[in-house]
């Protein structure tokens, strides 16, 4: 099976932009029905891996949609995916790793680095349209300047 590298990269970029724009339905439309989402980090303090979020597709959408009911930071997040490395397809699934850098721009225009990490994605390519079957956000950053209602 030939993997359309441009379309897979496009999927990763879209996933960043749609969360930045808080277009949650469109973001979830990039995902397979069995999509799972996790945020993880390795704790140097506890000397073990940690999981900071786990969501299935439907639950994730519900959570994202509830954000508008909350008092959220008057800030804009920008997720920048780079260093996209597309692995070998196996059983219709392509492993994709990218670096993600997240900036927080506050209402006064001040921009701060929020976090850096890796997207470890499983992408399905059946049906011609690449979709996210799973995403694990592996954070390097464990000491944050604030929390965020919208994940990475």
């Amino acid at each position, binding site marked *: 099976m030939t993997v359309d590298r441009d379309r897979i990269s496009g999927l990763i970029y879209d996933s960043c932009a749609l969360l930045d724009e808080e277009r949650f339905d469109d973001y979830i439309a990039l995902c397979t029905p069995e999509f799972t989402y996790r945020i993880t980090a390795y704790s140097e303090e*506890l000397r073990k891996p940690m999981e900071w979020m786990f969501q299935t597709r439907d639950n994730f959408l*519900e959570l994202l949609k509830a954000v508008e009911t*909350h008092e959220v930071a008057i800030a804009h997040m920008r997720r920048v995916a780079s260093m996209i490395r597309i692995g070998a397809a196996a059983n219709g699934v392509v492993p994709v790793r990218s670096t993600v850098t997240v900036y927080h721009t506050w209402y006064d225009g001040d921009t701060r680095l929020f976090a850096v990490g890796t997207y470890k994605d499983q992408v399905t390519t059946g049906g011609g349209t690449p979709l996210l079957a799973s995403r694990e956000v592996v954070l390097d950053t464990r*000491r*944050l*300047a*604030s*929390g965020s209602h*919208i994940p990475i």
Partner: protein
Amino acid sequence: MSRTAAEYTRSPQLPSTHFVDNRVYHDQGIFAEEKEKILSKTWRFVLHESEIPEAYDYRTASVADTPLVVARGKDGVIRSFVNSCSHRGAAVLRRPAGNLRAWQCMYHLWTYDPTTGECVSRPRPEAFDAVGLRQDACGLREVRTGLIYGLVFVNLDEDCMPLEEYIGDSMFLQREMIDTVEMEVIDFFELNLKCNWKNWMETNMDLYHEFMHVANRRTSLQIPEYYSRNWHTFPNGHFTVDRYSVEYDKYPGWENRDDSLALPGMKEDEFQITDVFPDLTFLTRGTVVRIDNQIPLTPTETLVQYRALGIKGEPEENRMRRIRDYHSIWGPFGRNLPEDCLGVTLQREAIYGGRVPYTYWCREEDNLSQDDIAARTWWKEWSRLMRRDQSQPFGPVLPEAAE
């Protein structure tokens, strides 16, 4: 009606216990004095014993600007030392945690015994001996360390009261859930908040602020029992509030909790808070205990550490549910923690410029949930130790704190 400058800046017409002169949050001198009189004179939580389970395990900490290493010696005893080489001061342990049978400073290779803190070797020592700096005078400084209910505390003051006396009965609602079965830290992260450490502590003693949390508005604030809990206050500035049952299914995507993973003495849907002066809070939601402690960096910058406690050795499936319960609300991407960050950030923005003179802790409702008795108890202890009245910190010096 709005207030004029004179009305705004005059001392509020309230009992002095019921308001705070905001200079206590941002004044450099007050901050320096807090480090001397409070942060290095009280028992300070540093870790849970499960973080250093094996002989030679260590974990670094920071208390009142003092770098520490807390270690389990080869004899199984937990001790603390100042984590600074006796030679030229470099931090000896560079990782936040690890297991080492000898602590060697990377700079000039002086080496220390993790059990005793003794200096056990110095390369080419003759030149030190020549001036009389003997190796046995080069040990690390040991710091008083106490263990209670699995919690490890240190006190930089060698003349301090015993830890058990300091804590007293303040953890009577907390103790059963953390000290019945063996517990373990299951999550750890830090926030570097641009706020005074007391502002964070205050979010953990102020139940009136819970209106800010959408999740609490839906799952808690509609419940009559939420408002009828009692605060219990204790000597040395500690307090705790009775528990109530949360209606989790009122928030989209959440389910009510059965009792399959309830911690000892709790129901899964119950919520309970205990605050230990000066900077330690236990927040327990049925399946998981959250522990906040603080490392004040400057008057306006604080490192807050967040730990989650679960049951040691439990099946992975149970562990994951505890962790997910915890993070859904209290993780950096949870529903509540970002809102708490926002609250203290807005205080910092408005107050720390020095032009907003007073804020209130004046709610009275028979010591029930949203009575400000907890904050007043905390500030009373602050005032006693600082010998400054929080309502007029630059006014008359208070009498010396009774022992």
